[in-house]
């Protein structure tokens, strides 16, 4: 009962801590809106010249662009918080609807990448650390070093060359074969086939990071007293590794993976535009070409909110996993 109340107040406190972050993002967005070339109303309208004068006047009024900056800022914050992010003329849809439509594919890609990179990172890190200094360790470390230095978009293009153009195993782009009208499991399978290359591309870089982190964490834990104790009471090496060391070594990797959500969203801009994966990243890329800054600002705001929400969820899960955390 008491633990439950403690957790509730912890969640509440974390929620309150997220408020200044959201406000800071809004202020940043507002500043960028005014930094953009042209009048803010033109930026809000999406494309200069395509909006009618009446609409521009209405925009100016709604965002108070004829009033002092402080009022403008307040109105902007109010509009954004009520999810009134404006209208995209290029797509002929409100920005919120556009973003909501693209959220699913991006979340699918991110989640797959997260699972793939964390499991592969932990597995390979374990393999490398179990025989530190062996050829296997060297091989894995070199692999990690190279993956860490390769630009994401280039990995994507090279995978397309090998697996789509030369071997013809996997599709080059998109999320599903729309013309095939797959339904049920056939559709799931089709989407999964399209997901392989983008998820692999995005995973490689993070996997490299987790491999190195995992390897270092295991080597550090292996020198701890509790390992000596376990060995003294006669446990086998693999048992010590799997049920004692692994548990402690995984923590920094999970923490890092939580911190990386924002960076993952950034990486998805590049990967989605290589594979034409219809998520937020591709939308950002398209809005760059259309010079639709308002849409771009909306994507930035929504993805920052997404990161805040995910971090919050991770923290709450943490309190469930590790009873020591009660900060």
């Amino acid at each position, binding site marked *: 009962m008491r633990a439950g109340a403690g957790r509730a107040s912890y969640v509440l406190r974390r929620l309150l801590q997220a408020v200044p972050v959201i406000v*800071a993002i809004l202020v940043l967005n507002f500043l960028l809106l005014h*930094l953009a070339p042209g009048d803010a109303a033109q930026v809000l309208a999406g494309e200069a010249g395509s909006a009618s004068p009446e609409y521009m006047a209405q925009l100016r009024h709604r965002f108070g662009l004829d009033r002092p900056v402080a009022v403008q800022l307040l109105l902007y914050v109010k509009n954004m918080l009520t999810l009134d992010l404006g209208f995209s003329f290029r797509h002929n849809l409100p920005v919120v609807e556009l973003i909501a439509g693209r959220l699913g594919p991006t979340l699918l890609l991110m989640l797959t990448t997260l699972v793939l990179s964390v499991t592969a990172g932990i597995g390979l890190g374990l393999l490398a650390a179990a025989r530190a200094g062996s050829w296997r360790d060297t091989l894995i470390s070199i692999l990690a070093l190279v993956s860490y*230095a*390769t630009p994401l978009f*280039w990995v994507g*293009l090279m995978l397309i060359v090998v697996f789509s153009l030369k071997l013809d195993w996997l599709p080059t782009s998109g999320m599903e074969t729309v013309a095939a009208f797959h339904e049920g499991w056939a559709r799931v399978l089709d989407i999964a086939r399209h997901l392989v290359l983008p998820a692999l591309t995005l995973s490689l870089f993070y996997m490299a990071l987790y491999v190195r982190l995992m390897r270092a964490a295991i080597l550090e834990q292996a020198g701890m007293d509790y390992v000596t104790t376990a060995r003294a009471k006669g446990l086998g090496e693999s048992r010590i590794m799997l049920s004692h060391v692994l548990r402690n070594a995984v923590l920094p990797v999970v923490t890092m993976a939580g911190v990386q959500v924002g960076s993952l969203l*950034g990486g998805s801009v590049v990967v989605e535009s290589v594979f034409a994966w219809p998520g937020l990243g591709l939308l*950002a890329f398209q809005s*760059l070409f259309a*010079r639709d800054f308002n849409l771009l600002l909306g994507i930035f705001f929504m993805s920052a909110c997404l990161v805040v929400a995910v971090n919050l969820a991770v923290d709450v899960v943490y309190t469930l996993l590790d009873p020591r955390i009660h900060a």
Partner: protein
Amino acid sequence: MKRFWHRFARSRPGLLGVAILAVVVAVAVAAPVIFPGSPFRPVDRPFAPPFGRHLFGTDVLGRDVAAGIAHGARTSLTIGVLATSAAVLMGTLMGGLAGYYGGRVDDLLMRATEFFQTIPTFLFAILLVAILAPSVWSIVFAIAVVNWPTVARLVRGEFLAMRGREFVQAGVCMGMTDRRVIFRHILPNCLSPIIVTGSLIVATAILIESALSFLGLGDPNVMSWGFMIGSGRTFLRSAWWLCTIPGVAILLTVLAINLVGEGLNDALNPRLHKK
């Protein structure tokens, strides 16, 4: 210096990194001599395959890919070094102030760095460059803005640790000014971790620059590797070298810088080295 080099030379990956990096720097410096004129100028028929008349072939407009690689090396290294210098200066200043004085300044700084850890930084860099109009300076600015918090956190930690050490306390008791304590006594002792982190930021900066120019946000007046890959991706099937060669150039350069960074880390932190 000699002892430092001796320690550095013990790490073979570090030496490999220095060797690769030396080649890249040499090519970058010599680019206007080996390939005079603009790298955007057509020199031959389009799509000439590599290893013929032109070492790396030509692209869709008949531009020499090798010339692009050489001039791109200049761009990547310049932007990497400029952005890193800006980030390190800014980060050291902010982190140093926060770590030395603590209190309100420190709180504010920690909030700011947490903020930068939360927002999708690459997306932020894209926004900055798109809004400020793509140019070498806006790219340098954007990369510096997203990288300074890393340095600030590091320097803050170092300063905080140094603040309590006897030699610093002694300096304060002797009545030294804050400026003298900071610049003559604390900062020189924090230089090695700053140098190591800085070298790794150069690698990150080059990766960010290549991704930005791949997305079409490069400076339109200078050749860059990301731009070459971005404009060659349409011909992936017919002209493989257009994307492959600049990609290898980025990979080798970034790898070399990371290796040098690790070598520096081992040489500058001998305590960590004994494992």
